[in-house]
């Protein structure tokens, strides 16, 4: 039994989209330094789950705790807890009117009140780390998808987050760009970053995950270490899913 406070904890979270019950009694803990990968077929609720963690999606009932602190539905407290959790989106969502460098310094300066100079230095260091430092003065539209996504990861890192959520970070990328993004994520994982990742990249999941969560129909169906999940899935739905994924 792990007595440490989880960085992210969901307790009995339920959510409906109209009549559709998209999250059914979801409970989940992510501990410091853990990499948790959520797998599952389209429409299983995995993206929604990822987005509820920082309340980009509202929930009907249940509780979300960040570092043991309950996350309120709105207000300043919500904003300050959100600042602790980074997020990387499928469509990058960089701010279109700003340079890459300004994308990285905006929130550290405005939200964390870090000095401009320090924020810039830190931003350049992070851009260096994800390999797009030479693009710092360009605007997002001038970058390739892979470069934009790496810059978006750097933007999340600039907030010195406790954990980062990845919502299908490679689903909008051309195949040759997927690996450059996955490489960055792999290096983050080996540096001990706490990560909750929704993805369809099975090999990547198997390689970096400490724990795999399999979702179907709004429920967590299986939760296990990656080797066990990929070699001996317990549920029939997970077996069907893996067969479908591996059949070509």
């Amino acid at each position: 039994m792990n007595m440490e406070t989880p960085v992210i904890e969901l307790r009995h979270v339920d959510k409906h989209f109209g009549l559709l019950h998209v999250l059914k009694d979801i409970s989940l803990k992510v501990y410091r330094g853990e990499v948790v990968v959520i797998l599952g077929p389209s429409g299983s609720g995995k993206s929604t789950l990822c987005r509820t963690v920082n309340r980009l999606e509202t929930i009907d009932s249940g509780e979300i705790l960040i570092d043991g602190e309950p996350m309120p539905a709105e207000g300043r407290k919500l904003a300050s807890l959100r600042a602790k959790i980074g997020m990387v989106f499928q469509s990058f969502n960089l701010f279109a009117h700003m340079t890459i460098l300004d994308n990285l310094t905006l929130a550290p300066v405005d939200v964390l009140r870090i000095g401009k100079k320090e924020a810039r230095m830190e931003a350049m260091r992070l851009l260096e780390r994800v390999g797009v430092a030479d693009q710092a003065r360009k605007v997002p539209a001038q970058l390739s998808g892979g470069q934009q996504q790496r810059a978006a990861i750097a933007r999340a890192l600039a907030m010195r987050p406790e954990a980062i959520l990845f919502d299908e970070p490679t689903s909008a990328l051309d195949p040759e760009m997927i690996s450059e993004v996955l490489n960055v994520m792999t290096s983050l994982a080996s540096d001990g970053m706490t990560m909750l990742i929704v993805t369809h990249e099975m090999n990547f999941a198997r390689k970096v995950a400490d724990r795999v969560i399999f979702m179907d129909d709004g429920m967590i169906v299986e939760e296990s270490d990656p080797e066990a999940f990929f070699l001996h899935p317990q549920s029939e739905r997970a077996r069907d899913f893996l067969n479908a994924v591996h059949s070509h």
Partner: protein
Amino acid sequence: MSVSNLLSQYGDRYIQALLTTWKLTAFSFAAAFALGVLITILRVCPIKPLRIAGDFYVQVFRNIPGAALLILLVYALPYLKIIFSYEVCVLIATTLIPSAFCSEHLMSGMNTIAPGQIEAARALGLTFFQMIRRIVIPQALRSTVLPMTNLLVATMLTTSLASQVPMRPMDLTGLVSYINTHATGGVTAFAISAALYCATALLIGFTGSLIDRKVRILR
């Protein structure tokens, strides 16, 4: 009267009228712009009564005829013991109406912002006002330079309302009425004012496209 007759007799007054029109336009547009931004923030803020108030404001001032608004300001307000000078009445009318259109332009400018950017801003912990100030308004402004240019021209043309009250100094349209009641300037007197309006509009249009090319957001 010929153009040269009119110019030799009223040339100074035309210049003064042009400057008056420019002044009214500049003040009205600046105020309308500031007010338009403010109203737009109300229309998207998280507090519903403020959103409704913002929408109501726009509906009212987008749909009221300028002349009707000016008449209310000049002749109805005094019954409430509120008396403004003619110039202030004109400025209020030529500010309120364009401010509603300014807000409409900004709303459509906001629609060009991908919703994902708003989510990213929220995920980074930005408050509503930080998001409005750093993400939403800058992008809305930069994508609406051309409609705002049109609005500036429209505001200039709206300042011709000043001719409906005895404001001194006179604006370009007011001067035409003045000339035609003191002499027979006929259509020519109008033509000179029209040429000055046109020249100003061309200048505004040219400057507007220059700015637009400079600030347009690459997507």
